């Protein structure tokens, strides 16, 4: 794995039937590359939470994943409403998810906290009315 591999995914908004496909694909590729199981798990969990957030809150978006021998960088970019209060959104249990989303088993307010917990570095750039970019880094 001397070179960097870049993967891109388009995430459909409000389509819960396809949510998780991008994360599953990255997980499969990492396993094929022989990444350590704990790395695969961290990537799968943090990316899936990001993917779900895009579906729930941002009408979809784009995910770019860079895989090198040192790290996996996941860039989740959406043109959604932005995050009003990032600090509040980072609190476990805080959620703005609507009832129909909660009925599916989401909206526990664990999305961003899980992304932080399972990545080695996380950066949130958000502009209200324009969108959000979350960058996750997981070391190999």
């Amino acid at each position, binding site marked *: 794995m001397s070179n960097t591999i870049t993967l891109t995914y388009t995430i459909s908004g409000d389509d*819960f039937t396809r949510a*998780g496909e991008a994360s*599953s694909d990255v997980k499969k590729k990492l396993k094929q590359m022989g990444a350590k*199981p704990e790395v695969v798990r961290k990537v799968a969990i943090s990316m899936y939470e990001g993917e779900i957030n895009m579906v729930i809150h941002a009408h979809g978006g784009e995910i770019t994943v860079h895989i090198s021998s040192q790290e996996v960088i996941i860039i989740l970019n959406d043109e959604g409403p932005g995050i009003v209060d990032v600090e509040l959104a980072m609190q476990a249990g805080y959620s703005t998810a609507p009832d129909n989303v909660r009925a*599916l*088993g*989401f909206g*526990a307010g664990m999305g961003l906290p*899980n992304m932080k917990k399972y990545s080695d570095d996380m950066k949130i750039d958000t502009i209200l009315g324009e969108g959000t970019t979350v960058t996750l880094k997981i070391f190999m």
Partner: protein
Amino acid sequence: MTKQEFIRRCNFTVINEGNNLNTEVKTPFCCDLLSIAMSKIPAGSAWVTVMGNINTLAVATLTEAACVILAEGITLDAAALSKAKSEAITILATDLSIFEAAYEVYQIIHASVDL
């Protein structure tokens, strides 16, 4: 205990047998909130839940749960059943409560250890 052996011994209905039947079933796990399940499920779990939708299957796959056990008579919706078949995910079902189903899983796993 392998998943194949687990399926043979349990009294749950097999909705979809799935693959990786030589995977080890290690522990029962109970949770219905997917984000919490996502971060907590140990690999190789028999995940007992009442959430029978397609997102449950995505979480089960990503966390490498051994199988999903739908409790309380819950069934998979059509989209989820189709996904379970195409992804070969093991789905079992029971009318038992979540606790009773998880306890049965525990007993089956530990009975095999005692033998």
